[in-house]
């Protein structure tokens, strides 16, 4: 039986027509305006309006380019790097305005005002399940930094994206993806595949340590992004040591190694949340596959993958590894269109563009809602300083 994939030529697909691309982009434009607060009853403050419209246009133009060029990775990367760079600006500004420092004073912890990000979710599950206690100095209900809201957001996103969270929602990964994009070629090319197991080891260690010590051990000791968000106020030698660890991990895993390897090394080799999130790729309906009949293993996809989610063995099986975060780099680089977007249950390489579109509508809607809102907030902060 000849499938459509067998009939398709190997040449790169031609760009989509402008009008058809605009038509496909229209829902995202409307959605972006809605998410940026352009609805009845929304704030009419001029700066808020300007930052909202700029962000809505930014997200819409990137989606249009995805439609027009039929490629995903580079446009998604522009959004993701912008999110990674702008998030700390807005976040640090809010911290300094609210409490005058990036350090978390003990009073704020006692008051339950420590902002809760998604990173500690996996390490807090076991203590919560066993004792109904959340080992985190935050607030369960309440504001946008509340634990319940963040967990609710994460659950909804995970149902849609699986590990795609790490490409379309994480507000940290963009920093290293941006650094990795700077050098034209990798200085270190040979990477031991066993490093991929480290995030699982970190996850296991942090889960057990958090259960034993009843504290968010990862946040207290190992999170590299404390260097650019908030950290434990260095009241004593212990606090000083913690902050030195944060800075060294950030410098090594988020700056130096991505520059040398052109990979997202913190995500690939360290992040326990990323390892945990990989499990949810099993329930996600979208995945990347390799059409074995088209593939002549040139390994371009393996080299392009920023997360080391392809190996010779997995390519031979026609699959990505469980850590695949659906960024689209492998699809965009494949000269034979063997790497494809895929909906589970359907035939491999049968209408892959349809699978890509269905995934992108879901992923981009959430990217606009979460990352877009963060970007708009940071743009507002910047405009506030300029104007």
């Amino acid at each position, binding site marked *: 039986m000849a499938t459509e994939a067998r009939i398709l030529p190997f040449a790169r697909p031609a760009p989509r027509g402008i009008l058809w691309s605009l038509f496909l982009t229209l829902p995202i434009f409307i*959605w972006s305006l809605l*998410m940026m607060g352009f609805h009845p009853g929304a704030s009419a403050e001029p700066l808020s309006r300007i930052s909202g419209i700029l962000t809505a246009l930014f997200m819409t133009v990137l989606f249009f380019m995805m439609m027009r060029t039929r490629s995903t990775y580079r446009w998604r990367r522009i959004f993701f790097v912008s999110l990674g760079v702008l998030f700390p600006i807005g976040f640090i500004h809010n911290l300094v305005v609210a409490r005058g420092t990036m350090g978390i*004073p*003990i*009073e704020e*912890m*006692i*008051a*339950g*005002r420590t902002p809760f990000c998604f990173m500690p979710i996996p390490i807090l599950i076991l203590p*919560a399940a066993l*004792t*109904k*206690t*959340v*080992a*985190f*100095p*935050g*607030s*369960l*209900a*309440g504001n946008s930094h*509340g*634990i*319940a*809201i963040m*967990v*609710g*957001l994460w*659950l*909804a*996103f995970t*149902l*849609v994206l699986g590990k795609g969270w790490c490409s379309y929602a994480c507000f940290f990964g963009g920093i290293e993806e941006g650094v990795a994009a700077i050098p034209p070629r990798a200085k270190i090319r040979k990477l031991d595949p066993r490093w991929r197991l480290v995030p699982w080891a970190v996850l296991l260690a942090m889960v057990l340590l958090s259960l*034993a*010590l*009843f*504290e968010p051990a990862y946040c207290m000791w190992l999170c590299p992004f404390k260097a650019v968000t908030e950290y434990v106020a260095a*009241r004593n030698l212990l606090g000083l040591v913690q902050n030195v660890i944060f800075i060294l991990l950030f410098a090594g895993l988020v700056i130096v190694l991505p520059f040398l390897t052109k990979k997202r090394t913190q995500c690939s080799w360290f992040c326990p949340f990323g390892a945990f999130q990989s499990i949810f790729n099993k329930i996600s*309906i*979208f995945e990347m596959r390799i059409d074995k009949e088209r593939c002549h293993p040139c390994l371009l996809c393996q080299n392009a993958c920023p997360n080391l989610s392809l190996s010779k063995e997995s390519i031979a099986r026609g699959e990505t590894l469980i850590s695949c975060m659906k960024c689209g780099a492998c699809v965009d680089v494949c000269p034979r269109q063997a790497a494809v977007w895929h*909906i*589970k*249950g*359907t*035939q491999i390489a*049968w209408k892959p563009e349809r*699978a890509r579109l*269905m*995934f992108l*509508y*879901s*992923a981009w*809607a*959430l990217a606009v*809602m979460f990352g877009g809102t963060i970007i708009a907030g940071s743009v507002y902060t910047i405009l506030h300083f300029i104007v």
Partner: protein
Amino acid sequence: MKLRATLGYTAAAITILVALLTPFLLTGLFAKGVLALGLHVDDVYSGGPKVRAIPMGAYSIDVHRPVYPHLLQSEKPFVQLDWTPVSALPRHVSDAVDIDGDGLPDVRVTFDVPQDPKAPLRVDVESLNPHYQAMQNAGKDKFSRLIVRVDHAKDTPGDDVILVRIPLGNP
């Protein structure tokens, strides 16, 4: 194969629907689900539930239930006392407090209340019952041994407190 493909596309369409419902419905719904689990923030951070209030005229002292840390937690057992509201406190506080409610004072707590809410605080605790440890010139040493001013005003106006955590000794 056709059935599996149909199911696959149906699931993909539902996924788009889930994405569209996330900001309006699902995040709030899941958050309510999390709240319905009956979880609470660890008492080492929150100080544990209040058990009674001791009226002291213009202000009062709230006594919390003693907090016993988990197995390998680095903190010691402690009890939290809240002086509230701060605006009603005299410049110098020296109160004998009956923590366990047996009619006898258990500790005498002494501290100054500076005008500047951000000024560092120091507390002396004299132990009148061996179940509670004495503290000299303590500041923000540990979660189980401290004096801090917590400004709850951001959440509930007028609810600022000075709280003292006193480590428990052997009974």
